[in-house]
């Protein structure tokens, strides 16, 4: 199969521009970039073999033993020069599928193999394994099939109409991040804790004691499995060392062997052990299930600093040595593309990146400045590695120095979209509002795109995107989806009959609530399916208080449990409501019937009116209260209908405002909108204004965005595109520092900068061969520009360039 031109040249260019601090890193990085993303049948095959032969009837134990079986039987290797070892697949970028969740049938594999962008190659023998062994066994048994069997028709109608998406139909709930516990405890320590909880079980008085025992036993199996898995590497390294002629490499291999026989069984003693331990844990989590957003180590600078300091003081490590190990870890992340998605889910999140996020800076549990020497070293690594994953973010608290922000801006300026910038103080307030303790809140940060969570203590699950502008369309057409003619919503009234804008808003709010209820109903069904059928005992070891409660991560074992619904289309919904209010109800420039007619006809014959709607109505993103107050009203309504509602696992539903790339898919499901947007065009992304509608510069955008109460969310996403010249001198840098500081003072959650000129992007679209390594910020993550589909490319080009005045 031919690869896309863009990708091939991408390689040659990157090979030419080798990056890395030394030959070892350059080589490993090049190998990682050159490795082909491909489907690995190994996990699916081992899992199928296990399930065929296992007589185990207790679900958690069966899941644990399956985990053990995979880790004990998968192929392992150590590549030349590697210092950190361990792969999920049988080699770099060999990506497994998870047939217990989603079964990839022949047509899905073909689609992965044939698609132009974000392709996963599938070889003939892989097709054969799936057709002969995997598909026949899993057909009818997957979580995905269970979900579609259980959800009601109204849910399916809304889902098909593009009102919302559902994360868990193809990937397990994940979105969680590790805290500092593995740096203090080995798996043997966790096993001790598990044993002591088993001993404490009261089978005579606690009706759940048997369930707890099963779960705890399952956790124990997985903890032991990870130790054994590491021992396989220890053995392999030793064998390789005995055959190695190069004395330097021989020493390294012996060291790897020693490290792998110490961690994860025991708590790490050195910087190197700490990194290797994390990496084994990472492999464990992403092998157990295909949770969204892989897994993340969280605040690496905080966790690793004590090891770094001690090793340097005791002469075991140099600054360069630490950097080399970190770069090795970076390459490991890069070796692991996201598990392949299919259908709508592939469209909404079309990328190889698996959203592992490294948090740098911010504050410590005691509220003090967490920026240390290692924070700057991590930024050096980000700059030098220039890889799409892991995704690095800086966390800015009022307690952090400007110097830290400026260092990050120097990297942002190079136009590769990393690091993104978060408001550490707002994250703490968000988590406190949700009822977390101060220490747990301060221990939190962000993962995935922009999602806040209490690291190591929370199951925070993103459940799906919610298409707010679609609700407006359904309201305008009295509950009908004009694209299909199907009555999917409530009959809230014929548009021509509304006498005031407020009456119309009431109808909109009724529809909004109706569809939120449907979404939540589906979520409850899905959470129950995961809790009953798909426990994750290994992940449960890592998140407090699963061991203490004897409960699985998916059944409410975590200390905090939050299920998020992501609101999408802030700009489009605001501008559309604003246009209706102004032109239809106030100025009466456009008749009600006329509005519906122009929307139905996609503005054909109405170009003048469309121009008026685009150019002469109040728009979000300009610090204009007329529009911004409508944004607030919609936001508050979305919040009110979701926040605090109970989830299946004993937690609460929450909101956040981010799109990944779903605004393109959602746009394709909506006809023309009253803001002048033509049918099927993308809607606005994140909480950014409609592309090109912010006309008063970045401060006005930030002021508009900050009118949303970010503290009531678990994350918002704001994109600002800058041309490089805006950051070229000290004055420019200082001004951007001020933008960040002020936005954060106003409680803004996150801001990301795309630093590139529109002309460059246009040229890149025309000549992908010239821009193979052009990385842009998409939405909460970065990707290669030439991997994006044309619509996304256009949209990134269109996003306003804020020129210096």
């Amino acid at each position, binding site marked *: 199969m031919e690869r896309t031109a863009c990708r091939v040249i991408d390689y040659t260019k990157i090979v030419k521009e080798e990056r890395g601090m030394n030959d070892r890193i350059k080589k490993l990085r090049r190998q990682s970039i050159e490795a082909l993303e491909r489907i690995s049948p190994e996990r699916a095959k081992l899992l199928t073999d296990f399930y065929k032969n296992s007589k185990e009837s207790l679900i958690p134990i069966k899941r644990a033993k399956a985990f053990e079986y995979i880790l004990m039987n998968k192929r392992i290797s150590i590549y030349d020069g590697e210092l950190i070892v361990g792969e999920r697949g049988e080699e770099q970028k060999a990506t497994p599928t998870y047939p217990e969740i989603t079964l990839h049938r022949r047509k899905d594999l073909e689609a992965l193999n044939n698609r132009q962008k974000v392709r996963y190659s599938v070889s003939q023998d892989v097709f054969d394994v799936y057709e002969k062994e995997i598909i026949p066994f899993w057909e009818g048994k997957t979580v995905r099939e269970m979900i579609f069997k259980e959800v009601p028709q109204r849910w399916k109608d809304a889902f098909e109409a593009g009102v919302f998406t559902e994360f868990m139909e193809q990937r397990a709930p994940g979105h969680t991040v590790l805290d500092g516990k593995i740096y203090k405890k080995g798996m043997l320590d966790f096993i001790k804790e598990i044993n002591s909880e088993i001993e404490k079980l009261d089978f005579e008085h606690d009706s759940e004691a048997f369930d707890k025992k099963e779960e705890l036993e399952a956790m124990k199996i997985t903890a032991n499995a990870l130790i054994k898995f590491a021992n396989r590497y220890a053995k392999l390294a030793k064998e390789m060392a005995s055959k190695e002629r190069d004395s330097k490499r021989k020493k390294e291999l012996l060291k790897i062997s020693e490290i792998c026989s110490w961690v994860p069984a025991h708590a790490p003693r050195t910087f190197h052990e700490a990194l290797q331990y994390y990496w084994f844990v990472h492999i464990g989590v992403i092998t157990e299930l295909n949770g969204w957003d892989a897994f993340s180590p969280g605040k690496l600078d905080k966790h690793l600093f004590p090891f770094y300091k001690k090793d340097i003081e005791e002469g075991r490590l140099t600054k360069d040595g630490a950097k080399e190990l970190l770069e090795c870890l970076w390459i490991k992340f890069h070796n692991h593309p996201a598990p392949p998605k299919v259908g709508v889910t592939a469209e909404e999140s079309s990328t190889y990146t698996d959203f592992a996020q490294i948090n740098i800076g911010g504050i410590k549990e005691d509220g003090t400045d967490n920026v240390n020497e290692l924070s700057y070293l991590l930024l050096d690594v980000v700059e030098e590695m220039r890889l799409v994953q892991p995704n690095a973010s800086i966390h800015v608290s009022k307690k952090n120095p400007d110097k830290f922000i400026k260092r990050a801006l120097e990297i942002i300026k190079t136009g590769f979209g990393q690091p993104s910038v978060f408001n550490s103080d707002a994250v703490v307030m968000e988590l406190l509002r949700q009822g977390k303790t101060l220490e747990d809140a301060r221990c939190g940060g962000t993962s995935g795109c922009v999602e806040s969570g209490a690291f190591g203590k929370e199951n925070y699950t993103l459940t799906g995107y919610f298409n707010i502008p679609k609700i407006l369309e359904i309201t305008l057409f009295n509950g009908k989806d004009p694209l299909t003619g199907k009555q999917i919503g409530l009959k809230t009234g014929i548009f021509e009959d509304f006498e005031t804008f407020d009456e119309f808003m009431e109808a909109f709010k009724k529809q909004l609530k109706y569809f939120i209820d449907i979404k939540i109903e589906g979520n409850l069904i899905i959470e129950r399916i995961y809790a009953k059928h798909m426990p994750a005992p290994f992940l449960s070891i890592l998140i407090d208080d699963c061991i203490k409660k004897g409960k699985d991560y998916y059944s409410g074992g975590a200390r905090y449990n939050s299920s998020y619904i992501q609101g999408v289309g802030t700009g489009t919904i605001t501008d559309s409501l604003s246009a209706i209010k102004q032109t239809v109800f106030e100025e009466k420039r456009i008749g009600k019937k006329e509005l519906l007619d122009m929307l139905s006809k996609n503005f054909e014959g109405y170009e*003048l009116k469309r121009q008026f709607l685009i*150019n*002469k109505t109040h728009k979000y993103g300009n610090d204009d209260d007329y529009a911004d107050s409508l944004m607030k009203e919609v936001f508050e309504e979305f919040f009110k209908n979701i926040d605090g509602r109970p989830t299946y696992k004993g937690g609460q539903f929450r909101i956040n405002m981010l799109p990944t790339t779903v605004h393109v898919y959602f746009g394709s499901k909506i006809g023309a909108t009253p803001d002048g947007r033509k049918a099927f065009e993308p809607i606005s992304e994140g909480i950014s204004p409609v592309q090109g509608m912010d006309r008063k510069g970045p*401060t006005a955008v930030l*002021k508009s965005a900050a009118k949303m109460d970010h503290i009531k969310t678990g994350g918002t996403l704001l994109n600002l595109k800058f041309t490089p010249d805006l950051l070229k001198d000290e*004055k420019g840098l200082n001004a951007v520092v*001020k933008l960040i500081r*002020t936005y954060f*003072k106003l409680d803004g959650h996150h801001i990301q900068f795309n630093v590139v000129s529109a002309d460059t992007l246009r040229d890149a679209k025309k000549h992908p061969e010239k821009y193979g390594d052009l990385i842009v910020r998409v939405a909460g993550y970065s990707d290669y520009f030439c991997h994006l589909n044309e619509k996304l490319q256009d949209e990134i080009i269109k996003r306003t360039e804020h020129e210096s*005045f």
Partner: protein
Amino acid sequence: MKGLVFDIKRYSIHDGPGLRTTVFFKGCPLKCLWCHNPESQKSTKEIMYHAEECIFCLTCKSVCTKSAIGVEKDRIKIDLKTCDLCGECTTNCPTNALEMVGKFYEPEELKDEVLKDRDFFGNDGGITISGGEPLMQFDFLMKLLALLKEEQVNIALDTTGFTDTDKLLSTLPYVDIYLYDIKHMDSKIHKKYTGVENDKILSNLIELDRNGSRISIRFPLIPSINDDEENIKKTAEFVSKLNNIESVDILPYHSMMEDKYRKLEKPFLLKHIGKPTKKRIEYVKKQFEQFGLKVNIGG
């Protein structure tokens, strides 16, 4: 009392220290041929025509009550004699091809508008009042200055200096820093290119300096008009004798505003002049620095 403003720019980092909001007053006693904002000169509203945005829907023509709008070849033509600037055409133009330049504000209203970004100003940023010549709307300016002073924001006044000395000095209690233009040291040449002589401008500058206010000199560098050795030397000499000069900001000439002249149907007379070379800018910078002055390029 109302003041006429032609623009408000936020996130302005080249009009004084820090991050600022700049408000541009309409009306100027000078008519510099290189003026970057030709719409700043007239003391009344004006209509600007962006031909590239025009889709010839002729909505303007149909809403004009004075029949002042006609079509000439491939563009809209407004008869300035009959047009009463009522604004119907600009309000209804669906693509903003016709733009009304100039908006009247009450002092309070303008204060609220320019303070929208106050959270961003920090310790060094603030408001810059520019023009045109702000002092041409003296009473309005004084009202605005008083209101802004109450809000304790940093105020920069960007002035041509061509004004009554008393008026200029009465802004002293309010203004934190003056951005003061020097265009040419030779009065005759000054008059040739700006329409006025420079005596008053220079004497006002001396007076302002004597009162101890902070001043940044703004020097537009225009090839073949004021970039000759003699003028640079004279300017530097003059400025170096003052006591309170923070910096000299060299503003290299560019012709990106040529379009605006066309849109206002004003003649643009500097077609033959290009922008100064980087080398030349650096050279001029050095010349000023030789007199012990701190020099910025681009403000």
